[in-house]
Every structure is written in C-alpha cells, then in structure tokens.
C-alpha cells in the first residue's frame, strides 16, 4: 500500500539496526529510540523487577496511525508478534480513504 509508511522501531542504535536490516534483507527503515523517549511516550516502555534491580524494556507492539495522526490500531505483548492484524487495519484505512 503506497499510502502507508512502514517502520520498525527498536531500542538499539542505528548501526545495530542497519546491520540487522542487512542481515534479514528488510525492506523498510528501522528507527532507533536509544533514549527511549518515543517508547515511554507511547506507554510501551515498562519496568521489570528482577533480582532487586529494575530494568526498562520495550514491549513488542504494533501501532497504526492514520493520516490525521490518530491511533487506529495498537496492540502490545505476544499478540503483536503477528503483524497481520495491523496490516489488515492499514488495508481497511486505505479502502476508506480512497472511497472518500
């Protein structure tokens, strides 16, 4: 769908993301949230307690944002490993927007 921009987001550096993108021959850009600003503003960054220490870690998540900047789909955790639901939301958006 040419009217949907797809991005991966991780807590890793652009260099690590570039190496990862090359290794798996990924077709969309990987964005780096090293300071975790975006992840915390989206509520995806969570604290995990382990052995008396607290670690900050991102949840696996899929998010679809429409052209007006409104969230149309958001899922986190194990179900977000499967991108099909998010992809079908994009397809529905595309159909609605082109029907206008």
């Amino acid at each position, binding site marked *: 769908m040419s009217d949907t921009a797809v991005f991966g987001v991780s807590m890793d550096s652009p260099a690590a993301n570039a190496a990862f993108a090359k290794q798996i021959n990924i077709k969309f850009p990987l964005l780096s949230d090293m300071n975790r600003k975006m992840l915390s503003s989206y509520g995806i960054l969570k604290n995990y307690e382990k052995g008396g220490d607290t670690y900050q870690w991102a949840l696996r998540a899929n998010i679809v*944002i429409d052209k007006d900047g409104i969230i*149309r789909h958001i899922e986190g955790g194990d179900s977000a490993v499967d991108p099909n639901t998010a992809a079908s939301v994009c397809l529905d958006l595309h159909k609605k927007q082109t029907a206008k």
Partner: protein
Amino acid sequence: MKRLLACSLLLAFAPAFTSVTASPQKKDEIPKLTLKVGDPAPDFALLSDEWKTVKLSDFRGKKNVLLAVCILAFTGG
C-alpha cells in the same frame, strides 16, 4: 519400584519447575498500554538505520504509518 521412584522425584521437583515457569511474567502482570484507539499519536523524531531523522509529523495528511516495535535488533520479538 522404578515408577514409584520416578513419581516421588517428579513430586519433589514439581514446585521448583512451576516457580521457574511462572516467575518471569504472569499473564496478569503484562503491562497495559497507556494509549488506545482514537487517541492522538504523540509526535516523535527518531534516527533511521541510514542516520536520517524520521518525524511522525512529516506524514501528517500524507501517509498512514505502521510502527512495528521490536525490543532489540537481532531478536524475533
């Protein structure tokens, strides 16, 4: 006799196994997302793997955006 021994060993270690499998994250401990459908998406500016800044606001009125958040590079999750 062997079966009895196997059963008693299983019972002896069962609590250890259950505590190991249950400890990392129970179902009800999975954090809930703070944003929901219909909320405005907070803007962000992130560096791409080609060291270019990508802003969400750049796509306003132009494209829908699909974000797939994985924890780290080189991970399936």
